[in-house]
């Protein structure tokens, strides 16, 4: 029985989580294309294990305004999933869903648009979780989506704190989608440490305990 934590994860485990991220993001892209009824391409997702202090810089600074959609996950593992999107990307998606309105990124979302963006997050994270659930045969039940539009650092404090209970790093997946524009999005999947062990075990990665 080997011990692991996110801070000293072996490259083998990291590769598995990376592959899960790839598959999840791929499914999410398909769901997005169906929703928008258009062709959406995706770059190879980048899986990153970052120190807390570097997280804000990745997204253009801790004060960069982002849209964050957050869902609790229950079932066989306890945790949460978050999907983050820059304002330009969020505005572009909402405009497309609203039948090609042409508001620019500096215009605030109205009530209908806010629920549209929540629904986008719901569908994307749902597709991501579904693929993870299929591969691992674990039951994953997401809550309703919650939305925050605020500074990247402030939104990321929520998953960072959850990661903070088990280590000093945060694991996130950066995906770029393209339709007519490039849209960068970030997934953060947060099982508790027991959850990581369950995921790896369900994939036949052996009997491990995670500290």
């Amino acid at each position: 029985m080997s011990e692991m934590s996110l801070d000293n994860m072996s490259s083998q485990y990291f590769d598995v989580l990376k592959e899960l991220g790839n598959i999840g993001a791929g499914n999410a892209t398909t769901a997005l294309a169906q929703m928008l009824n258009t062709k959406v391409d995706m770059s190879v997702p980048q899986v990153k294990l970052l120190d807390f202090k570097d997280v804000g810089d990745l997204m253009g600074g801790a004060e960069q305004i982002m849209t964050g959609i957050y869902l609790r996950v229950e079932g066989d593992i306890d945790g949460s999933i978050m999907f983050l999107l820059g304002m330009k990307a969020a505005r572009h998606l909402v405009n497309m869903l609203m039948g090609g309105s042409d508001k620019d990124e500096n215009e605030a979302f109205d009530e209908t648009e806010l629920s549209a963006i929540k629904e986008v997050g719901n569908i994307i994270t749902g597709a991501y979780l579904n693929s993870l659930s299929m591969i691992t045969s674990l039951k994953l039940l997401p809550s309703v989506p919650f939305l925050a539009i605020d500074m990247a650092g402030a939104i990321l404090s929520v998953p960072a704190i959850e990661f903070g209970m088990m280590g000093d790093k945060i694991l996130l997946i950066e995906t770029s989608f393209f339709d007519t524009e490039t849209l960068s999005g970030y997934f953060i999947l947060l099982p508790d440490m027991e959850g990581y062990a369950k995921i790896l075990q369900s994939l036949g990665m052996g009997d491990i305990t995670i500290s």
Partner: protein
Amino acid sequence: MSQIIKVGMADLNICVSPDGITTLGLGSCVGIAVRDPVTKIGGLAHIMLPDSKEIKNNSNVPKFADTGIEELVRQVVAKGANKSRLVAKIAGGAQMFAFNSGNATMRVGERNVAATIKKLKELNIPILAQDTGDSYGRTVIFYPENGDFIIRAVGKPEKTI
């Protein structure tokens, strides 16, 4: 030339007038600024979790309210501040997503603020001002020169406490 020192998440640093010190995008985390008004030596900590004793892996001192504040005080005193003169201002501890859940993880902002107040009280450091709670992120800038604690939030006017 004065400069602005940056403090990251789960990080702390000290600062001597005329320099300022800042941390960006506090969410559920809490920013704790302390200062000795005579020597004008100060510091800022950006803590993430209330209690180092609740967690097994707790070697990262600035991550927790209890150990982070102790270390902040140790460092400003080592720089020449007088411990008995220290005063504090705090900000952050928001609940970023609107759950009405009893889940302790979700109410971590509130717990961070409570742990911060408790620790400062234990060290006999008075809190002169605080801007905590609610549901929005905050960037803070602290000037040990005059004790100004400037708070910025998205879509809100800048304020000084």
